[in-house]
């Protein structure tokens, strides 16, 4: 009986279709206060004074808090502590919150917030990373040149590689801010304990233990008396970490100062103003190949916009530089990725974490090279893909698992019928009068699983599993369900690890007072890292139960096996519940904390083993471009991925379907409308920020190509980020093929205007 590998029903599905699932904004508590933030008027300004007296006198207002009310540290951050929970001396972007009003009703809080008076002295706004570098205006004094970090990945001799190249292609690509666009705006609750200085925080929280640190840092409570219980989370994609944390600290401050529960939700406009985004990155690439198209060297300068706070920028740049080169063989790499502080909205973790942008730039450059050499994009990739025993672009010898990217890509192109379609499209596009032109695009990726060597030694997961006296296996884990189905996958791994049926396992909701501290559900690590911790806990509990059975049954237990709800000795076979009873009868406790940490890899900061293991992916897209309207219709996408072992195949397919669609939005529509004069965002709701609807998405095809990974506990790896990262590259390559010029359009999104004017330029006005 194997539970892992089965598409069991999601354990939260019933509550979600019945409408009973509780999200942060669905919770109500007696005496609850409603909160409203007062946002910065200028993206960069000195705060001269904040006058809350008038607001405090408004009907229903219980309190107005500002930075001065925070008793301890005023800044938070997961790695770099530079984000103000409430703006103190300065505003650094338009999403900074200067004060929070708490009142009996939301309307009262909204009204009173208008009466908080702030005096500013505006400062010059830095909105372009290129001019921010070395600018006399310094946003964060710890970074006097406004550069907040980066990574320079190096392998081999790049000058020699280019000297030996027959063909060189140089290119420039740009991407913009992308919104996570979770359908649930952020909402948190903070409930004070009347018995002691303790607060319980619920809501849309992706990283509960990081939040606990932030509350501890700012409000001074012991960690044991900061209880974080994420509610059902309405989508996150990396987005409900720092913003939701700042909100939760403000709400906890109100709750502790008033003794009343605090309810704090953002409108969509507030959410888009305040929450961090996917990094805009500009790329300058130089790719050198021999005359057959074999890559000799790649040199890239990437400049990322960190926005006002550093957030995850250096680790994002790490993934841009180490994973941006793709799963391609090359003698030399020189990939320098740098992030710059500006007064724009800050940027942080978002599904892909710096790779969708880099893959977009790399794959379009690959197509430019293929055209120059005179081979098809498919052939270009076939000649360069990594295989077993190869060394990765960063210098990692890939001899520890199946380097499946060739198999993955061939399955994807077969499903697309790529070779027949490619010949057909090349032929039909020879007609210069053709106004609707199709194109095909391929993009591949190798994703480092979990955090990577920039977090060497810190990549840990923990779980608490308790086998109850009724033999129910209860799992308490802080890797949060954010919609992807992680809770169900964890339950499947616990059932298999413990050797019991799936319905014997129950999953506790994450509660930091019960689940041990763990690294967060980020970086495509939930399934892989959670699974390894679960396996460790199961092994420890098996030992406890075996020791009890040895004492009760007076039998040797060296070869004891837990399987199919049975516990088998050499000459005896009892049920799992009987074994658990034996354990409790001997006053032993079948409960254990499982711990897993990723082995430290060999990485010197520039070269070596940037990750412990990798997931291989390929997206192929077919599009049709209408030159007269500028529209791009995606006709079909195929996403083929090697998840190691698919713990729940339907959930893996769910990730692929969603990832392909998120990539389509990034490639074709999504634009926040940044105004570089005042660093404001024009498109702050869904009437202007356009994400794909059911009408935009074709009959996409997800494919799973399994090759169990010996480096993971159940053979599986996580699929959150791989599912989206190559997609924008595939679609944009297809659009540029349709336009007949690989690499022609260079900046995301490839929206109506850009495609229309490209059509006019390349093919003239309609005949």
């Amino acid at each position, binding site marked *: 009986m194997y539970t892992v590998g089965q598409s069991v*029903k999601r354990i939260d*599905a019933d509550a979600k279709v019945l409408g*009973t699932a509780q999200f942060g904004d*669905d919770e109500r508590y007696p005496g609850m206060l409603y909160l409203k933030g007062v946002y910065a008027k200028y993206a960069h300004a000195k705060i001269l004074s904040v006058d809350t007296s008038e607001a405090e006198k408004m009907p229903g207002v219980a309190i107005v808090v500002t930075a001065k009310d925070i008793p301890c540290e005023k800044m938070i951050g997961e790695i770099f502590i530079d984000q103000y929970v409430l703006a103190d001396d300065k505003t650094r972007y338009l999403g900074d919150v200067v004060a929070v009003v708490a009142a009996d009703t939301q309307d009262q809080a909204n009204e009173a917030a208008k009466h908080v008076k702030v005096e500013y002295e505006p400062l010059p706004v830095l909105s372009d990373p290129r001019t921010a570098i070395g600018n006399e205006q310094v946003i964060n004094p710890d970074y006097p040149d406004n550069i907040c970090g980066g990574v320079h990945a190096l392998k081999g001799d790049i000058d020699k590689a280019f000297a030996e190249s027959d063909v060189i292609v140089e290119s420039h690509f740009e991407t913009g801010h992308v919104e996570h666009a979770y359908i649930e705006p952020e909402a948190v609750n903070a409930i004070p304990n009347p018995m002691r200085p303790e607060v319980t925080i619920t809501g849309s929280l992706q990283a509960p233990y990081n939040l606990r640190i932030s509350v501890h840092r700012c409000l001074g409570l012991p960690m044991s008396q900061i209880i974080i219980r994420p509610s059902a989370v*309405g989508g996150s994609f990396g987005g409900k970490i720092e913003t939701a944390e700042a909100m939760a600290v403000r709400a906890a401050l109100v709750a502790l100062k008033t003794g009343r529960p605090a309810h704090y939700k953002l409108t969509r406009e507030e959410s888009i103003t305040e929450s961090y985004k996917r990094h805009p990155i500009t790329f300058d690439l130089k790719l050198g190949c021999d005359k057959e198209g074999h890559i000799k060297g790649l040199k890239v300068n990437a400049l990322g916009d960190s926005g006002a706070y550093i957030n995850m920028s250096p680790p994002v740049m790490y993934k841009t530089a180490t994973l941006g080169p793709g799963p391609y063989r090359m003698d030399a790499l020189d990939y320098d990725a740098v992030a710059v502080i500006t007064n724009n909205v800050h940027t942080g973790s978002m599904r892909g974490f710096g790779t969708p942008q880099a893959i977009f730039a790399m794959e379009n450059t690959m197509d430019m090279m293929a055209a120059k050499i005179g081979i098809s994009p498919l052939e270009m990739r076939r000649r360069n893909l990594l295989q077993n025993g190869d060394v990765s672009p960063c210098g990692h010898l890939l001899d520890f698992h199946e380097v499946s990217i060739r198999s993955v890509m061939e399955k994807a192109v077969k499903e697309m019928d790529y070779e027949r379609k490619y010949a057909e499209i090349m032929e039909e596009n020879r007609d210069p009068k053709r106004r609707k032109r199709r194109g095909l695009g391929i993009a591949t990726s190798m994703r480092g699983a979990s955090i990577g060597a920039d977090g060497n030694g810190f990549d840990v997961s923990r779980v608490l599993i308790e086998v109850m006296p009724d033999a129910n296996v209860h799992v308490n884990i802080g890797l949060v369900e954010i919609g992807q189905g992680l809770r169900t996958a964890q339950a499947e791994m616990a059932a298999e690890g413990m050797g019991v049926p799936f319905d014997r396992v129950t999953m506790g909701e994450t509660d930091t007072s019960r689940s041990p501290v763990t690294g967060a559900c980020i970086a495509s690590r939930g399934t892989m890292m959670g699974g390894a911790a679960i396996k460790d806990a199961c092994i420890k509990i098996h030992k406890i139960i075996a020791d009890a059975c040895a004492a009760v049954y007076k039998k040797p237990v060296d070869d004891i096996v837990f399987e199919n709800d049975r516990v088998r000795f050499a000459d005896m076979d009892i049920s799992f519940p009987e074994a658990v009873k034996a354990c409790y009868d001997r006053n032993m406790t079948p409960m254990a904390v499982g711990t897993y940490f990723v082995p430290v890899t060999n990485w010197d900061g520039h070269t070596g083993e940037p990750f412990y293991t990798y997931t291989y992916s390929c997206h192929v897209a077919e599009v049709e471009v209408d030159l007269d309207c500028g529209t791009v219709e995606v006709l079909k996408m195929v996403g083929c991925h090697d998840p190691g072992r698919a713990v729940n195949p*339907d959930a893996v397919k769910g990730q692929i*379907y969603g990832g392909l*669609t998120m990539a389509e939005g990034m490639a074709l529509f999504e634009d926040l409308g940044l105004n570089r004069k005042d660093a404001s965002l024009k498109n702050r709701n869904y009437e202007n920020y356009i994400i794909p609807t059911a009408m935009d998405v074709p009959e996409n095809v997800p494919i799973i190509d399994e090759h169990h990974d010996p480096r993971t506990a159940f053979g599986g790896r996580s699929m959150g980020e791989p599912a989206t990262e190559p997609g924008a590259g595939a679609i944009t390559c297809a659009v540029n093929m349709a336009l007949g010029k690989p690499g022609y359009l260079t900046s995301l999104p490839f929206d109506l205007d850009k495609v229309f004017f490209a059509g006019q330029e390349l093919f003239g006005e309609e005949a």
Partner: protein
Amino acid sequence: MKQTLSFTLNHKPYTIEADPCDRFLDVLRNDLSLRGTKEGCGVGECGACTIVINSNAVTSCLVLAGQADGADIMTVEGLSETEIGSVLQRCFIENGAVQCGFCTPGMLMSAYALLQHNPNPTREEIKEAIAGNLCRCTGYVPIVNSIEAAVKSLQS
């Protein structure tokens, strides 16, 4: 100013006191504690607050309480008591239409309204019916598959 409003909600008669200018979404969530209906954008673009009024799917953030007077209203909370609703719920679960679940109530209500009007929709008609419901998790294909499966199930 509050007025008396009467309507049928999930097949039960209701008489409440509410300001007719309040958003009906707030009446549902705050006055009636029916919080299965979600708010995602507040401007009628995301569809998370979709309910069915007099057999039509509408975004309740754009409906005023006064407009509910005398109406026949369905929300996600009443769905499982209807044949179409309970089949849709089952098919959503079986076909991967549920991930984070925040768009799910609105998505179900749009599908419910569609199948009331058109018991045999084409795939294209299904996509049109849910075009006003944004989902960021599922990529829509599993949702369309679910509604197709519900159509088949209801016909057999």
